[in-house]
């Protein structure tokens, strides 16, 4: 029977020692699993251990202790089998500088065992999707950083590896391309591919990920889908009100509710509150009596709020 587990990480530890410097526990007793066919987000602040975890899962680094497996293959004992199951976009702008865009795609496919007419056709299709047709014969060393990144991500669509690792995939992409890549990734997940991504752009993770793990200092601090994570940081609300004309005593009224953040732009006020739901509604009602309201928006905590809250909490407790 085929397991539903794509990735299993069990008490993983990675310690770096550099010369006489103090040892660094980049990954510290981390355990988690990833189901097949999901978009899994591995989030954390800089130095949290995301990239190290990814390096271990993609066989680029060996764990100090603990185990990790990809589709049942141990990342240390069966590294080659793991590599047959994965496609990896690493953080650097890794591309074949001396090859054209087309040859980058074809060479990548060749390494994964794909060659011939069908692959050349697929390369044309992928270049079309990533807006690379006009630079198909241009050497990558002559392209800008953003376009190189596009080439790098485009390569993942040249192969059918069941698991894709994307480390900061959208860096250097413009909003339109990013949107279309997100759609493509969703399509891939719908077809059963498992996508593991790290990102610093939390709205991206919020939009894409079915399952999120937040880590800090190499340890897991929260896990679940967005709805579940929201329950971990309750009583946090983002409120936006647009007035026809902002009331003069607006800031005075709001100050009584001790907002965590407050911005007033023209006739729009945005605030972040840590309050009971009834208190939030009380504030909105109060403000609505002071002037004609054109728009009201009340949201629970965003992933960014959750992320900041949880990482700060874990920082305080460590």
């Amino acid at each position, binding site marked *: 029977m085929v397991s539903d587990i794509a990735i299993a990480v069990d008490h993983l530890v990675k310690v770096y020692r550099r010369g006489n410097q103090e040892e660094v526990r980049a990954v510290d007793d981390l355990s988690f699993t990833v189901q097949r066919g999901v978009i899994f987000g591995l989030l954390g602040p800089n130095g949290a251990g995301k990239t190290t975890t990814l390096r271990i899962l993609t*066989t680029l680094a060996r764990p100090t202790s603990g185990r990790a497996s990809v589709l049942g293959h141990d990342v240390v004992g069966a590294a080659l089998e793991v590599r047959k199951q994965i496609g990896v976009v*690493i953080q650097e*702008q890794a591309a074949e*500088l001396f090859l054209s865009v087309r040859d980058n795609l074809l060479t990548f496919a*060749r*390494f994964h065992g794909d060659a011939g007419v069908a692959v050349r056709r697929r390369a044309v299709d992928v270049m079309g999707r990533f807006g690379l047709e006009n630079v198909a014969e241009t050497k990558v060393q002559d392209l800008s950083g953003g376009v190189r990144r596009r080439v790098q991500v485009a390569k993942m669509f040249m192969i059918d590896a069941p698991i894709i690792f994307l480390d900061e995939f959208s860096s250097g992409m413009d909003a339109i391309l990013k949107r279309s890549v997100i759609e493509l990734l969703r399509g891939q997940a719908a077809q059963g591919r498992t996508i593991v991504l790290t990102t610093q752009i939390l709205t991206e993770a919020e939009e894409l990920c079915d399952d999120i793990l937040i880590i800090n200092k190499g340890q897991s601090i929260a896990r679940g889908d967005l709805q579940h994570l929201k329950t971990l940081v309750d009583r946090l609300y983002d409120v936006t009100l647009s007035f026809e004309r902002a009331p003069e005593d607006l800031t005075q009224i709001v100050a009584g509710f001790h907002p965590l953040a407050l911005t007033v732009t023209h006739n729009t006020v945005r605030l972040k509150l840590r309050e009971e739901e009834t208190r939030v509604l009380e504030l909105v009602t109060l403000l609505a009596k002071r002037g004609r309201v054109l728009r009201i928006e009340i949201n629970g905590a965003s992933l960014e709020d959750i992320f900041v809250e949880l990482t700060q909490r874990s920082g305080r407790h460590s």
Partner: protein
Amino acid sequence: MSTRGLEAVLFREGKIRATNWTFIFWDLLYPLGYLLVFGLGMNASLGFTAGLSGINYNAFFLAGVLGMASFGIASNTSWSFFLDRDNGIFYEMLTYPLSRSQYLVGKVLFNVGVALVQAVLTVVLSGASLGVAVRPQGLPLLVAATVIGTSGWFFFYAIFALRIRRNDTFNAVTSVFYFVFLFASSMFYPLDPLPRTFRLVASVNPITWHVDVLRYATIGLGDARSVTIEAAAFVVFTLVTFVFAVRALEREG
């Protein structure tokens, strides 16, 4: 062992060389330029025959050019190795479905192939334009020396390309290697007339071992016993550098 990974490495290297004329220049034409410009000039101006049993400088220098080609091809590859690591594609390649040994062996095979093509070009051109005749019975040794020589220098350079992190340091190291290895050796001149210290340094220089074997193979210069010892020393050098290159590669991931 599946050869798919190996084929892919060869495909990649071939694509890079075939679509970048500067690589072709450095690998194939640069040593020929040495032979035709430097060698011809030295031969004509210095009439280099003293102590060499009537062998002219062109014939003497042929082995030097073949050794230089192996050394140069390995040096160029290490430079591209360094660039690959610097821009990240090297690490990405380590996540491709091929073993570390397939990666190294593929690179070596390609370099050996280029070195053999270069050797054929050099031998043919030196025969046609400079009248240097290569002895037929030395051809198997010439092929072996080209294959092992290129591999040895590739592994040697790979160690530094994998260990050194900074571009300026890498350039400095390779420049020093070029100068020291090539000039403190029997590549450009016979060692006998040189000062004792120079001869001592040259005698422990693997380029001297490599070039002396090539010289014996091409024009029969040197005695069989000392050339055998030098050949054995170079094989040991190749094995040792291979071990260190594999270790350096494993440290990378």
